[in-house]
């Protein structure tokens, strides 16, 4: 048998192996099922709406909030500073393009609990450990933050701080979502600029 035939047989074998190979890491989950299960069952993947409100009020730059709803829903109402990556488009492009951009924390939210929990299972399955979920979604945000109300006579320092954070987040949410679409982006930029100016201190 000459070399050419041997080479052809070897090539055929390799071709068969390639055909049988599992899909590449970017398309199929890379984390082992047991590890993924224990990660997603851990409550540390969740942030409460109050914790998210605190991130927004403090304008924490290490946090990226990802809105998984449709572009139409996002335009109507969204959490200040969030970016829109519809759940249906999550795997269309490389998720690393928005999950690997130097943010320590990426928080998914949708209207309820389904889409954000699908998204975290996908993101953690693809080995993006910096992904989290806002528990309860936008419905819980409205229920807790937007409809927050204090009715008692006495308020503890902790309750007061919580109520103040909710009120400030609510104000930011109202300011942001009451604007025309074209102004929403400019609004966020101007807020950052105003803070930078304030940071200047005494001269």
């Amino acid at each position, binding site marked *: 048998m000459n070399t050419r035939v041997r080479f052809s*047989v070897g090539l055929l074998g390799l071709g068969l192996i390639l055909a049988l190979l599992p899909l590449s890491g970017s398309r199929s989950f890379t984390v082992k099922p047991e590890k993924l299960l*224990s990660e997603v*069952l851990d409550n540390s993947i969740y942030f409460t709406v109050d914790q998210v409100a605190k991130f927004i009020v403090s304008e924490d730059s290490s946090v990226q909030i990802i809105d998984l709803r449709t572009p139409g829903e996002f335009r109507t109402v969204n959490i200040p500073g969030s970016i829109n990556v519809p759940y249906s488009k999550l795997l269309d492009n490389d998720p690393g393009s928005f999950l690997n951009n130097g943010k320590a924390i990426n928080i998914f939210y949708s*209207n*309820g609990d*389904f889409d*954000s929990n699908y998204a*975290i299972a996908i993101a953690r399955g693809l080995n993006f450990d910096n992904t989290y979920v806002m528990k309860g979604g*936008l419905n819980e945000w409205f229920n807790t933050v937007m409809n927050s109300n204090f009715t008692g006579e006495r308020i503890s320092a902790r309750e007061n701080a919580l109520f103040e954070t909710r009120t400030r987040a609510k104000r930011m949410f*109202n300011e942001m979502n009451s604007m025309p679409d074209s102004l929403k982006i400019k609004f966020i930029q101007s807020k950052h600029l105003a803070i930078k100016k304030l940071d200047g201190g005494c001269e």
Partner: protein
Amino acid sequence: MEDVSRRQKAVGKRQKAKDKKQESQMELIKKYRLVIIVVLPILILVLIRSSGLNHFKNDAKKWAESSVKQSNIMTIEQVVSPSGKNLIINLDKEVSQISKLTGDVQNIQADSILSKKHVNLIMSHDGPVLLFSLDPGLSAKIWMILSQLGCRNIYILTNSADNEVFKYKFRPDTLLN
């Protein structure tokens, strides 16, 4: 005597032919030694990797598609209809009202869903497998993991199909503009 010697000759001939065949086979193996040494171990590794449930091997997008279309969600009303072979898995620690439903109800806690016994039960079930939890997020996560492992005909059973519907109306504050 002649018969015996003829038989012995025939046996000897057959043996020689057999030996020749073996020799040629050995030669062939020797010729392809390099190809076999390279290809065979890779093939074995690929086969090991391609089978078994120790890893995900499916196209993540393809297997998540029904969650985008929301065709993976079933309501209790849909299940109550006498469709027959439903396997209902209660993922909660508590035995809930779901046990009253028609079909086979199994109480399997979420953290043990990937045990060999439970995966085999799900895979071998001939009919829809319905995951139920009072926490819709829990069923969603387990559904995604099982789907990506290649479990077909698996659904989320929920008593609130409108979980992903925005339930509030935002009124813009026009005084701010």
